[in-house]
């Protein structure tokens, strides 16, 4: 029972008063930010990355973990009461939850979302506890060619899964890869793509890219479209708590949602959209009240909300064991690790057990804190929505400035912020996904290192890339990810596509 001992050690770290305090801060901040539409966990953590300069690593990650889970709780609140999902994982919750709120069952919807999140978060964290060390052990056998194959798989799946078209996904990915090549080549010391600017020698900072694409792009987008009617808050009228029947209809979707969410979240590029969608579809099929779907079925809130939280625990598996981020949030967490000079992966379990197990233990604690924070205090969080929108976005821009200017007080970073902010705006308008940019930027240089390392070992023989069963399998899967969706689409559209295609 080595894992249990490690976990107990982790609780010893997480239960220190100072770390408990950071967990509380993270949960409160995460919830507050999750409630505000348009700002997700990735951006919140990115805006707070500068604190890594001053706060001990364990405390910082405990806070970030609180933000990650807290933002999910907050996101469901906004989805249910405002019908504006703050992040993609909450879309399905909005569908049924907002209907429930309109029918005067808002309190029950919020409760099933909160308790479901707690159940799923705990199950997901348990799975993470017992799975992560095993996968980390496994990762020790990975050679550079295996890591390269894994990253190729990560690239293709992120580019294919995120966004609506493969071309746009790959454009985003290659944009990120291109940004990643700017700066000094780590292996030969040559300068690359710096356009004669000294300030680019260190490369483009991840924080600048993230903050600009998300925060600045979003602020520009919302400002240009703010002529629309502001969303109105649905009062929590008829706030009846969950009835006995609600409990009976909720607990199975919670468990099923957890079972769907965790493994998919743990896949490279699993994300949270797919499991929430699958859970919704499944509950709809299994429900005894299928007619209620679309009009406020409680199963449609309980299942997806559980899947969402379990998937969030799942994304920590590849991140902590292999150093492989599969969502924007995970990419930011990876950047935070790198800020401390730490590289998540199998070695980290051996070298920094206190940090890792403290982080895992804090997930249990954070879940509990969130349940306590959310059930009675939901009315307070909703007040945040009363802050006028222009102040929220004005504030976001100020904090983006803190994040970018505080990095190294570099004028070039501010210029990059404006340029990338415009690109973020264009991406928002034309529906290009952002996550592949971040993953290309953060994994691209690593993939390059692994490729060159593998080729150096084999003395330039490209056959090395498929020389191990792991690498060959991963590359085959990557190829399938690339080839299968368009084939399926073609098969599906063939019968009816003929008349639809007109002369171009």
């Amino acid at each position: 029972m080595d894992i249990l001992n490690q976990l107990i050690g982790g609780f010893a770290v997480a239960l220190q008063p100072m770390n408990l305090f950071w967990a509380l801060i993270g949960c409160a901040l995460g919830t507050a930010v999750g409630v505000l539409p348009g700002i997700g966990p990735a951006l919140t953590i990115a805006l707070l990355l500068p604190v890594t300069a001053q706060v001990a690593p364990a405390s910082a990650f405990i806070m970030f973990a609180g933000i990650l889970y807290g933002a999910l709780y907050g996101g469901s609140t906004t989805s249910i009461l405002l019908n504006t999902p703050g992040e993609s994982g909450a879309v399905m919750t909005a569908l049924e939850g907002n209907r429930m709120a309109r029918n005067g069952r808002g309190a029950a919807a919020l409760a099933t979302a909160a308790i479901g999140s707690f159940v799923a978060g705990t199950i997901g964290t348990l799975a993470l506890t017992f799975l992560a060390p095993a996968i980390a052990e496994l990762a020790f056998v990975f050679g550079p060619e295996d890591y390269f194959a894994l990253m190729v798989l990560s690239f293709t799946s992120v580019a294919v899964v995120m966004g609506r078209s493969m071309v746009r996904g790959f454009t985003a990915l290659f944009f990120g890869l291109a940004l990643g090549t700017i700066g000094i080549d780590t292996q030969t010391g040559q300068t690359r793509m710096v356009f004669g600017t000294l300030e680019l020698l260190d490369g483009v900072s991840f924080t600048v890219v993230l903050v600009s694409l998300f925060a600045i792009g979003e602020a520009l987008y919302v400002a240009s479209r703010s002529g629309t009617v502001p969303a109105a808050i649905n009062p929590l009228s008829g706030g009846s708590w969950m009835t006995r029947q609600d409990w009976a209809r909720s607990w199975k979707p919670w468990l099923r949602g957890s079972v769907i969410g965790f493994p998919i979240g743990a896949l490279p590029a699993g994300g949270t959209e797919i499991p929430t969608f699958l859970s919704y579809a499944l509950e709809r099929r299994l429900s005894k009240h299928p007619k209620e779907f679309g009009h406020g079925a409680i199963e449609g809130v309980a299942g997806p909300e559980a899947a969402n939280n379990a998937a969030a625990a799942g994304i920590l598996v590849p991140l902590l064991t292999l150093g492989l981020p599969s969502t924007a949030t995970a990419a930011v967490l990876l950047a935070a690790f790198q800020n401390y000079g730490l590289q998540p992966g199998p070695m980290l379990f051996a070298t920094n057990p206190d940090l890792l197990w403290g982080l895992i233990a804090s997930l249990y604690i954070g879940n509990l804190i969130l349940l306590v924070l959310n059930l009675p205090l939901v009315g307070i969080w909703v007040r945040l929505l009363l802050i006028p929108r222009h102040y929220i976005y004005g504030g976001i821009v100020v904090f983006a400035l803190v994040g970018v200017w505080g990095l190294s007080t570099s004028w070039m970073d501010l210029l990059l912020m404006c340029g990338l902010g415009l690109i973020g705006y264009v991406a928002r308008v034309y529906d290009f996904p952002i996550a592949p940019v971040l993953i290309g930027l953060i994994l691209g240089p690593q993939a390059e290192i692994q490729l060159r390392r593998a080729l150096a070992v084999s003395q330039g023989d490209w056959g090395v890339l498929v020389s191990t069963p792991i690498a060959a399998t991963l590359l085959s899967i990557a190829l399938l990810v690339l080839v299968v969706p368009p084939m399926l689409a073609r098969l599906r559209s063939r019968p009816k596509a003929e008349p639809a295609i007109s002369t171009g």
Partner: protein
Amino acid sequence: MSVNPSRQDARKPRPWWLGLGVLAMGALWLNGARSIASTTNYIGVGPAAIILAVGIGLTILGVILITQTMRGELVAAAEGEDEAPPSRSAFLLALAGVSIPLLTIRWLGFPLSAMLAFTLVTHAFGSRRTGLDLGVGAVLGSAAWFGFSRLGISLGPFLPLIG
């Protein structure tokens, strides 16, 4: 012209410049790969190889994007049809807010630049209470400056003009 004419508005501008931008970036990277003295040593992959690969990828994607645009497949993301058209003046005002620190941050310092950025952005969102917005922006900027300085994050001198 378009694949699904019922869905798309013929008057919608087609973002041909988007594919062109990606293409230009690809060309820039291809050119960059050329100018790096590629020490194609025994491993066969020097520092220029990845840049070449990225350049080729971006070029191909740029061509595909342009083709898609010409065929009318690439238009603005579907929004609610009943939404108001995007406001150019609000966009420009917000952009001004985001870029004003470029001009001011070196001689006005962080708090005042943040105040100006905040005010411009709030005005882009339709706020017209300039005095209040300036005040809130100044408080927010100063609070951020003091708070983050205490965390050890340097945001430059408070008011560089004074020193």
